């Protein structure tokens, strides 16, 4: 593989989705700096998906983002999963490998959802143990993403961001800060999203995610089916003031727009970063 364009501070990317393969395989000039690939879509494939990903990798930096590590699961990560993820990472040479701070069920019954953890010492110990196993198997540091949640546990003894920070420090991993998820959880659980964003130490943040939620009337649902809403963009603006170097990613998984529409969201994210760091008078 030839050396792909390098990772740049503050670069803006989008999630790689198969509906956009035809747009991208012609190798057009795009406004995005990098792509994020869902690990599970490629780690078990030797066919066209992997072929496309490797082609994209020739032109762009790529991050791998998983949904099935189940880093909070009491059974620990599956060894077959880690083996295949390592193989994929060795092939793709991503600038970051990430997954979610959650559990996804049990080995014998995977519910394929990002189930929230209680914010307890036992959960921190469990995640730290699993991260150590995963980082050892992968030979690289992980980043863990905060998830949207629709319930909270009575046994939790700290805030979500205190839990996230404690996990990152104890596990020696980094944070993928999903601004939309912070907003969704804040609205659902009645805390200030600004407190969350302000509390996360800049040195722990490896990447930022932006996505769209759906307002279900009684709660906010993290659907990734639309553009970020104005309050999420405002929260993003607040985040990038403190995190000028973290790469930003637009995530869109359902009702995916045509390529130009997705690209426009990345351009908007870049414009906000520039407004905060390049265009503001000193």
């Amino acid at each position, binding site marked *: 593989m030839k050396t792909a364009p390098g990772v740049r501070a503050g670069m803006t990317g989008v999630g790689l989705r198969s509906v956009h393969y035809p747009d991208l395989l012609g190798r057009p000039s795009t406004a995005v700096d990098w792509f994020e690939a869902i690990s599970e879509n490629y780690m078990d494939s030797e066919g*066209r998906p992997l072929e496309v990903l490797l082609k994209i990798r020739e032109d762009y930096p790529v991050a791998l983002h998983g949904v099935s590590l189940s880093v909070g699961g009491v059974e620990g990560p599956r060894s077959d999963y880690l083996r295949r993820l390592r193989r994929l990472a060795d092939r793709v040479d991503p600038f970051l490998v990430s997954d979610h701070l959650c559990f996804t069920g049990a080995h014998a019954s995977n519910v394929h959802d990002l189930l929230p953890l209680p914010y307890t010492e036992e959960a921190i110990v*469990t995640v730290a143990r699993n991260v150590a196993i995963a980082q050892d198997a992968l030979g690289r540091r992980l980043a863990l993403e905060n998830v949207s949640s*629709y319930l909270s546990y009575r046994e939790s003894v700290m805030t979500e961001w205190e839990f996230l920070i404690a996990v990152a420090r104890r596990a020696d991993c980094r944070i993928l800060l999903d601004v939309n998820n912070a907003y969704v959880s804040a609205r659902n659980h009645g805390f200030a999203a600004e407190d969350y964003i302000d509390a996360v130490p800049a040195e722990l943040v490896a990447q930022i995610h932006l996505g769209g939620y759906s307002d279900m009337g*009684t709660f906010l649902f993290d659907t990734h089916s639309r553009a970020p809403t104005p309050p999420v963009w405002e929260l993003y603006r607040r985040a990038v003031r403190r995190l000028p170097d973290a790469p930003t990613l637009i995530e869109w998984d359902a009702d995916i727009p045509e390529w130009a529409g997705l690209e426009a969201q990345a351009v908007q994210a870049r414009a906000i970063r520039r407004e905060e760091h390049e265009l503001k008078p000193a």
Partner: protein
Amino acid sequence: MSSSPLERLQRRFVRSVTFAADADLIAAVTGGGRLSAAEAIGVYRDAYPARLTEALGETYEACWRVLGDEEFFAAARDFIARAPSRSYNMSDYGEGFPEFLESRPHAEDAPFIGDLARLEWAFLRLFHTRAHEGLEPAALAAAAGSESILRLGAACVLLSLKHSVYGIWKRDRADDTPLEPTEWDGAQRLVLYKRGTNQIFARELSVPEHAALTALAQGRPLGAALDTAGLDEDGARELFAFAADARLIVAVVGG
């Protein structure tokens, strides 16, 4: 050994999502937004069958078009209730769905549905298989003798189906309108393969051709495979030419 609080919580959560809301879990959580605890758990419980149904729909697209939304969703719901996902990869979900579809009442109207599903599952597996580098026809012809063992590449799937479903499956796959098959009578044998790239091809096989390729896949020598299949000389030549052109063979051993 007693379980820890986190183990108990996770067990209850999985049970609440895949079966029914656990009373202890309801007592242990507070709903977000204006949701009650039970409603909040319901958000996750509702998402579970929706997600797996979507996975089944992607894999068994033609079956969905044949059965229609109502019957396909009902079949998916019942299958999901009895078949938990054991893989970390959701696109692996649905092995066993062909046999399940065959066992349902709609099989009287669409007796071919199990075979159609088997074809779709085989296509998915092949889609994710690396395209092998098959031998060039000249190299194959030069190396192969009656006692040779011809190794088929990994990107090659042989199917023997009781119904003729290939025509149903390939009908305008970009279209998602309901399919109303009329012709499915008679058994059908197929080889699905990649020819050096990730494009997938299919060819119908006669009974002897399928038997010969199956014997080769089992490691029988070329001569024995052709004899067993009962192919005459012209038939053997035609099959050999196809296998060579399709780059099905990756190695010749012995002979």
